[in-house]
């Protein structure tokens, strides 16, 4: 199958991954667009016989990280203005636990980037720890510890039984 055709088949999954990282739907598609452009340009770097999906996820994730760092340098911070902080005035601890019940986007937004990407790769995209570690270019132990922290936070924010 041609490179482009394989990429077309990957698009729905790639958009899902990007949505989880970037939250906003049009930001996510911007990210996908940048990733596709990068992939087409560096097509010869992809080794036939290796997994195209892992390669694309790595490109997408790296572009996202670059963008987040650049935004951080410009002093732009993703607003965290969700329900939990707005009502934090009265009984903050109680409000915090389960306050985002049902609001998966809000809860995911509160995860640090490095936990959110692992949660997306393993829990949503269904990659094995080893595959996620390869995509993120980190040791497998880093994947499991970030995943554990991300999970605990999500369970806490989304309510007792998540």
């Amino acid at each position: 199958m041609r490179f482009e055709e394989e990429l077309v088949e990957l698009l729905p999954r790639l958009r899902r991954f990007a949505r989880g990282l970037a939250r906003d739907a049009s930001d996510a598609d911007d990210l996908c667009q940048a990733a596709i452009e990068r992939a087409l340009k560096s097509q010869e770097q992809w080794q036939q016989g290796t997994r195209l999906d892992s390669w694309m996820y790595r490109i997408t994730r790296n572009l996202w990280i670059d963008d987040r760092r650049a935004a951080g340098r410009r002093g732009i911070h993703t607003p965290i203005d969700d329900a939990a902080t707005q009502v934090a005035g009265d009984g903050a601890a109680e409000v915090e636990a389960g306050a985002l019940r049902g609001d998966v986007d809000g809860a995911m937004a509160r995860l640090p980037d490095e936990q959110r990407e692992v949660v997306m790769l393993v829990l949503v995209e269904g990659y094995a720890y080893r595959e996620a570690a390869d995509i993120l270019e980190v040791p497998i132990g880093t994947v499991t510890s970030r995943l554990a922290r991300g999970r605990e936070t999500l369970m806490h924010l989304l309510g007792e039984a998540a």
Partner: protein
Amino acid sequence: MSFDPATVAAFVDGELDDLTARRIEREAANDPALAAEIARHRTLQARLTAHYAPVLDEAVPGRLRALLATSDKVDTSLAGRREAKRVRFAPIHFGAIAASLALGLALGLRPWMPPASVTEANGTIIAAGPLAKALDTQLASSQSTNAAVRIGLSFEDKAGRYCRSFESQSLNGIGCRDSGRWHLERTMTGQAGADYRQASSGELAAAAAKMMTGDPLDAAAERQARAKGWARR
């Protein structure tokens, strides 16, 4: 619980070798706290999967597809289109068959796997296995005191669906009957959860009260609804 949290998580993620996985499954059958921990992880995963699944069904924006448009001359003849369709569909098709085969094999090779109470379909969390069976068949008015799943209230919600609150070792919640499945509208940790509070039953009743129209079903109405397969009136 004799397994550390990382091992339980790895179990849920399918990362353990078969021997260890089997040991956890055996122990979970007799250790409500372990079963609850596993259910907690599965619920989170089901919720995340359900939340992001709709993206897969969205039409891919034209600006993305345009980047990958093939420059081949467009063949508009019927035969040409048929050929194109066949070629394009074949890999997906075989991929799907391979995936379902792998799934079947995985299930077939693990007969000791306890049936999950929760699964995910079309972007929502639904009851499965023993929980679905209890919601289907068990009557609040005549259930044995040691039933694994206890039905609390049966009622109609504002959309006209039949809903039932339930409690079990690992999971409490409210399921509503929709298109032949029990959609889990509310879930919370069951009695075995580390942070289970007596208030949980009260919370469930309060949530049910908010959802229901009219009164909860009495024994006769409940039996009648069951006889009709919990289909909307």
